[in-house]
């Protein structure tokens, strides 16, 4: 009898203890949906990164003779756009700008938002109140409207739309980081660390950050899809990237005149925005459930 009591304990001890993130990674690798989506995303990302080597044609050089060719034309698998540029090449190059414009604001918001949230939550009191009330103002604007207004006021251009998108995501990330920090700050072990003489900076780095990163990471992955849609949307409105730069939202805009003659080709850039955005969304769902293993 004692042997059966001892065995499970031994079994637990025998498996090497893994860190939380390693367990999340393990969980994700066993999720077929996550694998499938990652494969699609990887395909999109790789074809964007290696566009200069993989693209069959020049993405900028047009030909008046070959304007708006339908899909499956000779030499142009997905047809050509309104200036006779090869769609396959344009879409591959477009992925570089579109993906960057979708990811950069989220990264910026992740870093800046976490920093502000940690600071506000850790300092607490009136300073925290002041920071959070100021950020409340951003919630008084519908986010799409705010993004359009900021990048409209700053003037069209890629960097301005990146600023506009970062500005609308930062307050959201701050809220997540601040609420976790405030909860953690009151716990006994933080108090113990402070008693033992640890400085504020090292307490945040060692004890608080680990708790905050998880929820903020989940939140930020969820923002990726919104960011993709909005970034391309700004370019679609003419507020983002300028022609002749290939970008999915801008391509969708310039191809609008072709929807009567060549609807399939005109819809292509938008389809790519959709696929990327839904892949980001589903991946965020997978990450969220994989990170739930602690509970």
């Amino acid at each position, binding site marked *: 009898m004692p042997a059966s009591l001892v065995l499970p304990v031994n079994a637990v001890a025998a498996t090497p203890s893994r860190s939380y993130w390693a367990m999340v990674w393990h969980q994700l690798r066993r999720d077929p949906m996550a694998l499938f989506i990652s494969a699609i995303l990887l395909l999109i990302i790789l074809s964007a990164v290696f566009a200069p080597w993989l693209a069959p044609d020049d993405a900028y050089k047009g030909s008046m003779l070959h304007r708006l060719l339908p899909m499956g034309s000779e030499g142009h698998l997905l047809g050509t756009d309104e200036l006779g540029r090869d769609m396959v090449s344009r879409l591959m190059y477009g992925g570089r700008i579109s993906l960057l414009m979708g990811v950069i604001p989220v990264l910026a918001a992740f870093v800046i938002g976490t920093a502000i949230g940690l600071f506000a939550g850790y300092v607490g009191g009136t300073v925290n109140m002041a920071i959070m009330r100021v950020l409340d103002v951003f919630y008084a604007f519908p986010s799409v409207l705010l993004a359009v207004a900021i990048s409209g006021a*700053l003037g069209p251009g890629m960097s301005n739309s990146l600023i506009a998108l970062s500005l609308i995501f930062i307050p959201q990330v701050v809220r997540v980081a601040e609420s976790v920090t405030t909860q953690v700050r009151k716990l006994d072990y933080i108090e113990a660390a402070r008693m033992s003489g640890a400085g504020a900076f090292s307490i945040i780095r060692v004890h608080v950050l680990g708790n905050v990163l998880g929820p903020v990471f989940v939140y930020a992955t969820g923002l990726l899809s919104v960011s993709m849609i909005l970034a391309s949307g700004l370019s679609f409105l003419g507020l983002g990237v300028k022609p002749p730069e290939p970008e999915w939202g801008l391509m969708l805009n310039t191809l609008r005149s072709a929807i009567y003659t060549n609807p399939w080709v005109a819809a292509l850039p938008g389809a790519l925005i959709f696929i990327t955005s839904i892949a980001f969304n589903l991946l965020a769902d997978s990450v969220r459930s994989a990170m739930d293993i602690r509970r």
Partner: protein
Amino acid sequence: MLTYIFKRVLYAIPIALSVTVVSFILVYLAPGDPLNAIAPADAPAEVIQALKSAYGLDRPVPVQYGMWLLRAVQGDLGTSIASGRAVAGEVLSAVGNTLLLAGFAAFAGVLAGCILGALAGYHRGSWIDRAATAVSVIGVSIPHYWLGLVLTIVFSIWLGWFPAMGAGPDGSGAWMWDAAHLRYLVLPALTLSVIPMGIITRTVRALVAEMLEQEFVVALRARGLSGRAVFRHIAKNTAPTVLAVAGLQIGYLMGGSILVETVFAWPGTGYLLNTAIFQRDIPLLQGTLLVLCMFFVVLNLVVDILQPLIDPRMGRG
């Protein structure tokens, strides 16, 4: 309850004020001189000076803000630099059109989302649950400006059922309640409704599924209540959350309709914003932004006040 309403209204005042500040400051972010739109580049200095004082641009910024706010409260949003017409009038007629579009889209989206979400919550794991999950993921992931184009291709170009652009057969932008005008509303409203449909489906599904596991529902069932009577209890308990989410969606739709309005050439606030941005028409940009954001602030307030009215538990807190 009255104290709650009073407190909530008081809280809305600083928010509303900050919104006016942001709407005003945004303009100072703008590079370039707003006068470039009316005065030629080689205008003599006296003319520029006269124009500046006519628009109040020679005063210090806080004074300009005060003057602007005082006039805005009285309903005077200035004169559009590009068209020379009163901004308030232009914004008002555009807001009507946007409200129409956003209202229809929110109604359709919320209704469909509630039905789909409730069905999915009741039959978890079934095909309808999977369909509802797909709808909610697609709803929040689809670039709706692209969906608008696809719907135009299918329903307007191929099938010829609905017009592709504009808000009426005469092209004036003035709305009338007849079949000819309603046909123009179908595609943009359908496009816009996908977002709230996705979000409401997800919310209702989660709420209903959670509610069905609650002890009080099990107890109700054990006491022999019919399915319909149990459903009434569930509906009552989900209503406050759904109302809060749906109310905000109308606000988001009003702000977010700019992309869909561009696709369908719908003469609403989005169209106005577009004009204002590309013609650098600062008063028009300020005015449109201010009206839309005030609308959003008021909507938030109304939702917060309505919520405890339908959910008595919240008023006491």
